[in-house]
């Protein structure tokens, strides 16, 4: 199964574009990274509906769904990093998540999500004509989670649901730094020995949770006539990354690697949110998620003059969003059946002195009569840093979400 999922994610091109935290965990993909959520500033985990689907932050929400939902999300991101007069831009395409939820009436709702929680992806060549060297840098990290979820509405308090999810962590990390020789310290007569001698500093390893198969999220949701709330707790866990460090001359000409196990203690997360509905189809929403990091993260580093740790800070995410739901009536005008979204967010990264501010707009385009939907979101913003290592970044992204809806288990007219 792991292999199958890995292959699937490879085909879809796993990559986030930020260069911040690449030696630690990489960029975190908020709340499952769905296009619908992104369109409203990653707010709205408390919003219930027929086809809201799986929320990895609030597994209780899906209990109110009435239809089977399959949701596939894609992200095209462009990030520009800059410091002083220097800058560079990277672009990436990725598939942050795919979700399937399966309501079973009074028996609750089952769901599963494949969520790329943290990732980093850089692959660039550098050519220096003057000094005649070439270098290649590659970071490919993907920490993804297979998240089965279950939620059920309480028997006598039908406005309240409880949900839980288990997060099975998988993924791999690779850093490959291919370098040409710098002969400045040796005599000219000795420089012949390094002709065509590129060396790769190669590190790779797998992600898993220490001493446990998964970490868990527990949530409660209240759906009111106008206002809905949720509250969730995610357990702390320790990520384990067994890394092999090597020097390579080619894939077959390589040293025996040395192995180092790094452990990253991820703290518990508390999350809450509210959705307020007015004038039937208008919603405003706000979500907050918070984690208190008490330890720095050990970096991949292992060589050169790279920093051994990434200092952490309390990370939190506040998001505000608006959504106008589309009309359910198929014969209404198309623009009226569309969903409109907008949102803002502010995020304190887990990396010390890094914050992010972003905004987004989005639409949901109905496809056919059954409620199929194509979600589009455009997002942009900036990541602000205040240290010597990380550069400020501005980012722009287009997200695409495909929502397939079905009515399995129900007869017509039900």
């Amino acid at each position: 199964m792991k292999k199958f999922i890995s292959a699937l994610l490879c085909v879809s091109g796993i990559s986030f574009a930020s260069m911040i935290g690449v030696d630690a965990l990489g960029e975190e993909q908020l709340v499952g990274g769905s296009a619908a959520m992104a369109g409203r500033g990653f707010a709205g985990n408390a919003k219930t509906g027929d086809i809201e689907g799986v929320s990895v932050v609030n597994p209780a929400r899906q209990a109110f769904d009435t239809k089977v939902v399959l949701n596939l999300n894609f992200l095209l991101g462009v990030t520009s990093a800059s410091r002083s007069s220097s800058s560079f831009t990277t672009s990436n395409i990725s598939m942050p998540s795919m979700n399937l939820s399966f309501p079973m009436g009074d028996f609750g709702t089952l769901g599963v999500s494949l969520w790329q929680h943290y990732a980093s992806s850089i692959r660039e060549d550098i050519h220096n004509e003057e000094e005649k060297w070439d270098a290649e840098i590659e970071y490919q990290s993907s920490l993804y989670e297979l998240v089965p979820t279950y939620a059920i509405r309480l028997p006598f308090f039908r406005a309240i649901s409880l949900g839980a999810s288990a997060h099975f962590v998988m993924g791999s990390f690779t850093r490959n730094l291919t370098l040409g020789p710098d002969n400045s310290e040796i005599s000219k007569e000795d420089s012949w020995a390094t002709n065509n001698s590129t060396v790769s500093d190669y590190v790779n390893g797998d992600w898993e949770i220490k001493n446990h198969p998964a970490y868990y999220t527990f949530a409660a949701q209240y759906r009111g006539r106008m206002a809905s709330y949720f509250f969730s707790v995610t357990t702390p866990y320790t990520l384990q990354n067994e890394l092999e460090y090597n020097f390579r001359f080619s894939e077959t000409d390589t040293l025996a690697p040395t192995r180092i196990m790094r452990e990253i203690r991820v703290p518990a997360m508390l999350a809450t949110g509210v959705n307020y509905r007015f004038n039937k189809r208008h919603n405003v929403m706000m979500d907050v998620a918070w984690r208190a990091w008490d330890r720095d993260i050990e970096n991949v580093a292992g060589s050169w003059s790279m920093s051994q740790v990434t200092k952490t800070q309390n990370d939190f995410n506040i998001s505000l969003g608006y959504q106008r739901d589309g009309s359910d009536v198929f014969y209404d005008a198309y623009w009226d059946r569309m969903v409109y979204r907008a949102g803002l967010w502010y995020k304190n990264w887990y990396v010390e002195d890094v914050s992010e501010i972003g905004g987004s707009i989005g639409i949901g385009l109905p496809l056919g009569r059954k409620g199929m939907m194509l979600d589009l979101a455009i997002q942009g913003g900036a990541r602000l840093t205040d240290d010597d290592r990380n550069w400020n970044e501005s980012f722009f992204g287009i997200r695409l979400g495909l929502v397939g809806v079905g009515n399995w288990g129900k007869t017509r007219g039900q």
Partner: protein
Amino acid sequence: MKKKNLLLLPFVALFVSSCSFDMDDEGLSRWLSDQGMPSSYKVQTVTVSDLKPVSAEVFKDTLPLYAYSRGVLGATEGMSFDAVFDFAIDSAFTARLKKMDSVKSSLNLRMVDSYYKSPYLPSNYFPIEEDLKLNVSWILSDKMSQKEWNKIEDIDDSVWMYELESWKSKKKADTTISVSLGSKDSLLVFDMPSALVNDIRKNSGYRRLQLRLSAPEASNVYRFYGPGLYFPRFRIEELGGNGDYVTYNAYRSASLPKNHEKCSDCLILHSGVFDSLVVEFPSKPIMKALSDFYGDEFPYTLGDSNDVRQAVVMAQVSFYKDDSKGKQELDMPIQVIAGSFMDSADAVVRRIENYKLDRPRVFKSGHPNMVFYDGDSLSLQVTAGLRDFINKASDGRSFKMMMRLGYPVLLDRDTVFYDRISSDKDTLQLSNGNSLAVDQGDTVRVLFSHFDYARYDFTSIKNKPATLKLWLASKRGEE
């Protein structure tokens, strides 16, 4: 909007983004620098002088050489090469043979043209003249059925080669052949002693004949074609009478090398066979030199003890050499092939090392890895071996390398060092001092494609210290 158009959107966006943004190399380079990463690795050299081997041992190659296309017969100083041939004698001729009054037999060997007619041979190479003392021994099988006789051709070559290692023959005879080979000769005819043909006359019927020629006192090595190119032929003919004769083609042939070196302490290698010299250097002086240079502890013993703090980009061992005790047939330097012993999948394997060209040096004073050449040092590259050795030195191993004599070098100062087609008319300066004119389209060969059956004495390696030079790439940061 139609569904198809919507699905196309992300791909269009991807295309646009990939076209719109170009990487700024300087920007990325500065980013790497801010992360503490370099954009090139710093090369540093460390020299370990006065390196004395803890052991040096010669491994003599005396296994039979299958002479499918080429074989040798004769001797050089310290080595001899017997030639063995496998024939099938048919009953029809042996029946006639019995009635003949007088017969003789001979073995005809076609000489290797690409060697004997080569323009690279020394000008005084011909004529080759000697009275060759030949010992002929043979194994004539018992009478066979035709079916068995037909199967002689199908005997596995490997089975035959294995059987040759325990050759037992009571039938033998000595003879002396007067050999005289000029540059235009291409056939060597050895008249066989009468005892051989008389033995065949006595034993009629289908038989297998294995014939072995031995000339340990020969002054030369004779190169002949094997049955893969031109059949070695055994001819029996009637003297007088009708002049009846028959010629049998050898199904297979082999050369059996024998090492006659008597000095057990000497490190003598012979070319043309896979004699090898294994030299083992102690770990301590190499570790100490690295420790002095980096200021770190060597060998590395933390964690799993695999040292990946640095990697060897190039390693070169320089030995003292003394060509005066060597002997060769051709007046050309001979390349010394270097190999190392290294880990591979939980085993230790011997690998031949790559040879990287120091072009300015080659142009100025020739390749450094040749014997029978100017100078008193021999430099061999053992990069992969040293890389593996430093990586795993914590287990207390020593560094082991191997050397072997390779092919003669035609172009000793060639900075290209691979065979190529000449793009123009040119005059090549050969390593033996001769000039060779080449036309456009001619093949320019760097190495002579035939072995010089030379002998080289490496004994001085035991007493004269070697020097190891390392080019290193280090991952250490600025402390």
